[in-house]
């Protein structure tokens, strides 16, 4: 049994240590907001937070999580998260929407760390999150909008 703390709740899972956090979340805990895209850390659809830091769920083995707190799109909260989700709705960011959980997780981690990111900061922090619908322009604007909301 491996113990994980997910969105503030202690969970137990009977699975091998090399099981990626992504699949523990999706198949064992029925938390399907975190998406599978490439399986090798190239697309960012599976982005979650470990102690507030954005990581790829497909590249994070549950045996390595230890006491770190896992946060997913289902549990994300706080000033930055609320601002990001509100900005995503305000600017109507998603199209197919499949990558957006990961985008929001990366954006929230960025703004928690750096509430006033520059354009370059945004591109750098979000670079690992691909969007095949190419909603990049609205994502960029929404991160800036969220940053403004956090000030207000």
């Amino acid at each position: 049994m491996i113990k994980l703390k997910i969105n503030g709740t202690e969970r137990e899972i009977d699975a091998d240590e090399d099981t990626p956090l992504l699949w523990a979340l999706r198949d064992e805990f029925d938390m399907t907001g975190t998406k599978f895209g490439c399986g090798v850390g190239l697309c960012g659809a599976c982005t979650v937070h470990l102690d507030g830091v954005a990581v790829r769920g497909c590249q994070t083995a549950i045996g390595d999580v230890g006491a770190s707190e896992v946060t997913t799109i289902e549990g994300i909260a706080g000033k930055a998260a609320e601002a990001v989700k509100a900005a995503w709705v305000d600017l109507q960011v998603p199209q197919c929407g499949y990558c957006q959980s990961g985008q929001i997780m990366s954006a929230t981690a960025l703004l928690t760390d750096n509430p006033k990111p520059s354009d370059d900061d945004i591109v750098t922090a979000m670079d690992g999150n691909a969007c095949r619908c190419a909603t990049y322009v609205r994502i960029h604007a929404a991160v800036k909008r969220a940053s403004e909301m956090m000030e207000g």
Partner: protein
Amino acid sequence: MKIAHDFAPAEALALMKPDGVTNLSRRGFLGVSAGALLIGALLPAGQARAQASEAIKPGTRIPAFLELRSDGTVRLLSPFVEGGQGIATGAAQIVGEELDVHPSRFAVECAPPGPDYAVINGLRMTGGSFSTRSSYMVFRQLGASLRDMLIRAAAARLDVPRAELDTDDGVVRHAASGRSIVYADLVAEALKLEPASEVALRDPSTFRYIRQPMDRLDVRDKSTGKAVYAIDQKVEGMLYAAVVHGEHFGTEPTAIANEAETLTMSGVHAVHRLPGAVAVTANSWFRARKAVEQLEVTWTAPKPTGLDTIAADFSSAGMLAALKASTDKGVPAETVGDADAAFASAARLIEADYDAPYLAHGQLEPPSALARFNEDGTLELWISNQMPELFQMYAAKTADVPVEKVIVHSPMLGGFFGRHFLYGSSSPFFQAILLAKETGKPVKVLWSREEEFKMDAARPLSFSRFSAALDKDGMPVAIKVRTVGEGPIGRWFSSVFKDPVDSSAVEGIVAKPYAIPNRSMEYVKVVHPVTIAFWRSVGHSMNDYFSESFFDEIAAAGDKDPYELRRVLLQDKPRHLHLLDVVATMSGGWKRGPYEVEGVKRARGVSMASPFGSETATIAEVSIEDGSVRVHNLWIAFDPGSIVNPRIVQSQVESAAALGLSATLHEELPYEGGVRQVSNYDTYTILSRDEMPKVHVEIVESGEPMGGVGEPGLPGVAPAVVNAVAALTGQRIRSLPLAKATFGA
């Protein structure tokens, strides 16, 4: 049992062939006003078809589409699959406008299979940028009819003349007495009434919802992780399946050396042999995948050579060489004037070969399918698809159950781009059915990204040879094009579209608007061994690149400015001229360059395209960075005739333009030694965030018949970029992607 590899192309869409309908032109078929309704086209059982044809006129039976709930919300069963294009929101706006219910109170679901939903001239699909234009009047009529019935029901209940009643956002009001009744309270009585044969539609000048930038209905769910896709489906007792296909497409597993050991692995339920694949079922997908990928499988050998299958020596370079080398006589695709005579007397001739590669769809949601045989004898499927009735029919054949026993759920799609038609074995749903049958349990098959890159059906590699004749003033007097290859219409819809000219192979080459008096376009069909597909904007995705780039070669040969030459050759086409004006104005006035911005040279290129009933003019601005092309700006003037939601239109055009740029710069699905040379996004490069240009879109509503929106932003991008590159570097790139070339400028 019907299996995936029995799914022969020739047969694939034979079942789509509606009785008595032959030899349709695609244009006529896709024309909204075409008369004959091909009702029940997709119902193979004679009885069902007869019943459907006699009883049901698609798009008319209100209860099949609309449910008025007591909480004031409206459930709309849409014929269309939502995949990011915004059709669910658009449909709510259109119905809501006439029904008089605010679109935000609509819940839109993709309807189950059924003849009511065959609203595209008797056929049902989500594709061809066709949803809104085909259903605009259907949705308006449905909303207006139901509103009329609600008013009549209220008139009867209140015993007042109909004319004294009006509606107000879900309520029927009688102003004189101050009484009002909410829709849901009237619906039972309303639906007992005979729908009026004709109902007045709302005067467009009074529209409140149509043409407004209304919020998408799915944005909140998609911004909180709550949106549910096919991959997210789960049912009680379900097994997860992972598969590995043969490295060589079409090869079969013959032996599995470590099957017994594999069965002892944690969570593994069984090892399975499938047509062209092996599978493991397990109690989680990770365990299934881990097990299937360590199987030691022996596969049959591919054929050593030849182009009838993907042989051991098949390569995309070899395929292109075969297309170029073809000497077969073509069939005329467009003939105007006498091109041969014009060539014979020309002052100057030019010729150029153009090609574009196989492409993958690369939608971010990997394919999955969930199948469950229910105790009542039904087969229930949750599958990514853009044509539910077609999948239903093939599911019935695969499972050997009657078609009416197949229940199809069509969840929203994590990326569309043409991926989800039925292209032979490129969908996992056959496998899900076979495994559910074999295990006696519900099974969800999910393909890894690597399996998806192996199995995705490809945008066809394409080739056209262009030549033009110029007069002594440098004006083009004739153009000839020889297009060799195959399009997805010919592959998958040949039983419906009998025209020997495959429209999906030549669109973007024929029917260009320019006044070049002599034109001779021919098409030579050469079949690919590769499973080919529709890919966003289909034939336009490469052909407008070919023809609009060659246009600039004509301009260069005649020493003309490419923008000015387009104006001259469009002087009798006010719609096109206007778009050229608009796009020039948007970009600060036409200038080709090169010119300097912050010390770096840039240049611009222009293109036009007429895809899916819409018109576009595009200008691209490029520079060269570290030997590669960087696109700074795309200006797109877009005329789809008229629109429903400007914000959704804008995002669709942006998105299409970005996909077009991705293909222009990077994308390529090459074969060598019979094997695809890409396996994930590290080898199949797509546009990165850093490369996303500024995309400026201006919507022009000319009032011409409504055209498509989802695809038309794409075709103009490649030629505008390539023309800009030529202006900047002098290099004329005739083979995509640009990543293959290096630039010195």
